[in-house]
């Protein structure tokens, strides 16, 4: 708990300080990074801590985005728009989770994929909300006492939600609920034998992640002002999956790094060539081939090489095996 607060405060300070050292263009891009980081963290929760590999996580992002885009025609207050995005995507997560969580592994992956693709096709075909052309809006975050218009304020707006999401996720992961979830991932049979209702844990995590992805989708509309059926696409779901993989599965902060690296790469490579999709696919294949836990683990290895701690016994991949006390024996 104490550590969570310290880490969160550090993050908050660095986000507050960032605009003073970077250019406006990078700031604009970082706003997107923060929003996508929330999205990636929510997938990271169910994948890295729940073992549920989802190819349909873009469904909740899309629902959140459409909720804000559609409702913003009638109301502007974020106190209605964002909770609506969270609640609607959470409800959808509950409904689909009840079906999907009955299955494991590849079956889960396929069902979530099928559900999302159905939504994608539905939004593209139907005449509601712009159909295939998408739905443009002009909505600014209205805090009630002021309206945020400048890119800088939008950055802080996204940053605030990012920090809040990170903190809540950290609490979730460290709570008995999160520990139980991880237990289910690691040994479901034992958890059942110990009397845990494993499906309940998975569904709670799934709904939580869905709501968070909905929040990210809602924030995304404030930045782009445009909701399109593409938000539901497999392409989107894969994008966020790749972010989680690049950053490092099984950590909270990994997906955040993944989102950052991915968006920067995307922006720079897209200016050079049209073949971003090809490069992204190859990148993804390479990461799967050399799956060593993503960038975060790479950083940890480097960190431990630079500052070797005598009290830790570390294996080749950088994971701590045991802590040693001063005489060199395991604690």
């Amino acid at each position, binding site marked *: 708990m104490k550590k969570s607060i310290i880490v969160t405060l550090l993050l908050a300070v660095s986000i507050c300080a960032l605009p003073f050292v970077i250019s406006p263009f990078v700031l604009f891009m970082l706003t997107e990074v923060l929003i996508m980081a929330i999205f990636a963290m929510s997938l990271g929760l169910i994948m890295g801590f729940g073992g549920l590999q989802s190819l349909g996580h873009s469904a909740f992002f899309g629902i959140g985005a459409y909720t804000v885009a559609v409702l913003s025609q009638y109301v502007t207050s974020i106190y209605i728009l964002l909770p609506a995005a969270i609640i609607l995507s959470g409800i959808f997560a509950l409904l689909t989770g009840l079906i999907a969580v*009955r299955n*494991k592994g590849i079956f889960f992956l*396929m069902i979530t994929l099928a559900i999302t*693709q159905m939504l994608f096709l539905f939004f593209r075909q139907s005449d509601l909300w712009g159909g295939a052309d998408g739905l443009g809006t002009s909505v600014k975050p209205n805090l009630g006492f002021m309206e945020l218009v400048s890119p800088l304020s939008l950055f802080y707006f996204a940053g605030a939600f990012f920090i809040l999401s990170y903190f809540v996720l950290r609490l979730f992961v460290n709570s008995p609920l999160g520990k139980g979830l991880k237990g289910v991932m690691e040994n479901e049979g034992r958890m059942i034998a110990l009397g845990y209702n494993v499906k309940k844990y998975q569904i709670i995590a799934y709904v939580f992640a869905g709501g968070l992805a909905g929040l990210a989708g809602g924030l995304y509309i404030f930045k782009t002002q445009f909701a399109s059926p593409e938000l539901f696409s497999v392409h989107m779901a894969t994008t966020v999956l790749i972010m989680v993989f690049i950053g490092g599965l099984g950590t909270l902060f990994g997906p955040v790094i993944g989102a950052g690296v991915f968006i920067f790469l995307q922006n720079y490579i897209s200016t050079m060539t049209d073949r971003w999709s090809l490069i992204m696919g190859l990148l993804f294949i390479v990461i*799967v081939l050399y799956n060593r836990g993503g960038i975060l683990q790479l950083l940890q290895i480097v960190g431990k090489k630079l500052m070797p701690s005598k009290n830790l016994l570390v294996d080749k991949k950088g994971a701590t095996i045991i802590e040693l006390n001063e005489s060199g024996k395991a604690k």
Partner: protein
Amino acid sequence: MDLFIVNTLSGLTYGMLLFLMASGLSIVFGLMRIINLAHGSFFLFGSYVAYAMISRGMNFWLALLLSTICVTVLALLLEKFLISRFHGNEASQVLLTLGLIFVIGDITLWIWGGDFLSIPVPSILDFSFAISESSFPIYRLFVIAIGIICAVLLWYFETKTKVGMIIRAGVDDMEMVGALGFNIKLIFSAVFLFGAALAAIGGVLSGPILGMYPKMEFEILVNSLVIVLIGGLGSWKGAFIGAILIGIIDSFGKIYLPDVSVLLIFVVMVIVLMFKPTGLFGRVES
């Protein structure tokens, strides 16, 4: 009544194309426990290669054969150099095939561009027959026939031949089959290639009916996944029934309920999975 017959036949045609795709997907899963998400890309790649050959004046049937071989070779390379490296690690294999969708999809976009393309109907089958007042293209009947022939061949292959016996045993217990002295890796590769070839045939045959366009592979893939989920993984019989069901629902849904036709398929899937999570013919416990 005419409309009913024509719709049923159209639905069957679409269903048979999906069957060619889904049966490969299902068999590969049954044996290797992986879902080859790039299966739709094989389908699309097959039809693009055939298009390239036919638009340069090649005979349809020769192009069908050559593009099937082409896709099989592609599948062989991918299996040999990528997928087999993760023998026994299903999650990585599935993710690999996911990456392949983007690579293959972008390469086809690069070569053939983003326009809607279609393969002309082979001249020998380019006429229609009349159903009282409506008419129905004979080519579609031909596709239905091919689908049924494939199903019969699969049935014969599975139940009457020795290779089919080994594969059936492999679905139940792969390790035991290996212990009996059969080369598991070879069987895996063969089944994977066979599935890819079926997908390519489906792709070429669909060229004159569905055409080709970018990101089509996702549509085909998802419909096949739904079929496989409804029919039951690892069972081509399930794929056959599921494909006919989805084909007919799609065909009638588009006419009577155009707005929600895509949701209709989904509703059927949910209902089936609620009552039988393994699908209609599935033996694999999920």
